């Protein structure tokens, strides 16, 4: 996310999901407020579709621990978020709810080199980290999901994992 190929860094959870809407608990209703407090991106929910991949700057999801900042993207059926790094609590919240947050330390280089542009059609293999930019017919790499993160993603989050593994 950014202008002229530069990613915005340190987007905090209040910019992702404004605290005025924290009372909302229905997943279905959360999507419409995604990025609603981030200058230049207020129209995001209307423009995005299921499976879209968000490319974001360093330390995405900095700050407070609100779960809605993850759930609003699930609500929009966002495919995944790729960023050089994530806020620590944001990363935990996302992994715990089975939402794919993927790290790619070289993201800025990929964008500077023209390998990734807004609107490109890309596919990413979360197990191997192999990425394909189908628009530009280029390949790239991100950091694959680690075993634990994959386990949680596969079953849909922490609580489902606890039920499936039945460690009573």
């Amino acid at each position, binding site marked *: 996310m950014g202008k002229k190929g530069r990613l915005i860094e340190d987007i905090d959870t209040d910019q992702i999901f404004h605290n005025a809407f924290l009372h909302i608990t229905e997943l279905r209703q959360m999507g419409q407020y995604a990025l609603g407090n981030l200058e230049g991106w207020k129209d995001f929910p209307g423009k995005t579709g299921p499976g879209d991949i968000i490319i974001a700057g360093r330390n995405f999801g900095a700050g407070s*621990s609100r779960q809605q900042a993850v759930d609003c993207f699930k609500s929009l059926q966002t495919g995944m978020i790729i960023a050089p790094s994530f806020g620590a609590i944001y990363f*935990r*919240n996302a992994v715990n709810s089975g939402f794919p947050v993927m790290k790619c330390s070289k993201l800025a280089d990929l964008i500077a080199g023209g390998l990734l542009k807004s609107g490109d059609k890309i596919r990413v293999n979360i197990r191997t980290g192999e990425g394909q930019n189908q628009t530009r017919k280029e390949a790239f790499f991100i950091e694959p999901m680690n075993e*634990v*993160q994959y386990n949680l993603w596969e079953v849909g989050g922490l*609580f489902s994992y606890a039920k499936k593994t039945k460690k009573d």
Partner: protein
Amino acid sequence: MGYTIIEKIIRGHTDEEVRAGEIVWLDLDVRSARDFGGPNVVKNFCREFGDTPVSDRSKTFFTFDLCVPACTLQYADNQQVCRDFARAKGFKVFDVDEGIGSHVLIERGLAASGSTVVGTDSHMNILGAVGCFGQGMGDVDITFAFKTGKIWFQVPESLKVFVRGEPSSGFSAKDLTLYIVKQLGTKKAALKSVEFYGEAVRKLSISGRITLCSMVTEMAGIIGFIPEFKDSVASEIKSLSGEEFNHPYADKDAVYSDAITIDIDGLGPQVAAPFLPTNVKDVGDLEEVKIDSGFIGCCTNGRFEDLKAAARVLKGKKVKDGVMLKIVPATRKVYKQLLEKGTLKDLFESGAIISNPGCGGCAQGHIGLTGKGEVQISTGNRNFEGKQGKGQNYLASPAVVAASCILGHIAGPEDI
């Protein structure tokens, strides 16, 4: 390639390959929740796992410390929700009389060296003081921990910090801690396990170790460890907890992200001015700051030795007219020591208000807040705007708080 301290502890609690950056499933020795966070754990647990048991009742606890006994209806309700749940599942509650949860875990030998403990307390990493990997987490994680006895964790990188130099005589563990917070800021130790070395940290008592480790949170670190210690510390921890003290050590060829040296030569008392814990200055460099109140306590400075240091300054003196000094021991055990050693009398006679143990004075709990315009000097760990009411908070050592309360303005003990 060798292992750092955090890698060693995690290796002892997982079957997976352990290296900084890897995410592993970690076996927990203890999981706990407090009166904040605890009610959500109960709610999550009942919704997700219904009537099923917790994974191991002997390793699961509630510790009430934030608002004790409850002084708001909400806390009263929340504590009761937790009590009922604990009774139904058959595990122990350290109730409103016990004191700060992390300290109670240390005193009861539940946070042994080399063990793993999680709770809904962002200062759970205080347990690094006794060589235990303590970690604060949100209610979703803690619910999962109650159910499975495990948690996933990304093995942090480690930072090595050497402290060197001879400080001046009035330099306490809190002054050392504040100075380190100033030097590391919130970036250098961010998301890292910090290993402290050097004579000044090796010499720390158990309460001094607690002071330093508690403020690793304010450095944005994951946890702090002090692997070198005096023999007396090992025996004190053993007598306190009944557990042997075998601090894990790092291998010689362990890999660190960075090494930093901090020089404390000649330093005297330190103060963190509002509104950041990193905004640290020499007491002598402050313009005269008049104060309305003082607070001695908090998980950072609520042990007997801390209150004793304050009592040494206050004995035979009076808190200045118009200044209010609030003292909160960390635990019931500390309270008992104050009583038995006569320290309580010295504190009382100086004019201080002494409350029952807990987080009061730090959290917005049972010993009041600061009002708008009020200037307070506190032994706490955070001075963010709004953290302890609407006033302005300065952070300092127990001796500096005591001296300031006698004089009515911020000053070191040698100014008396």
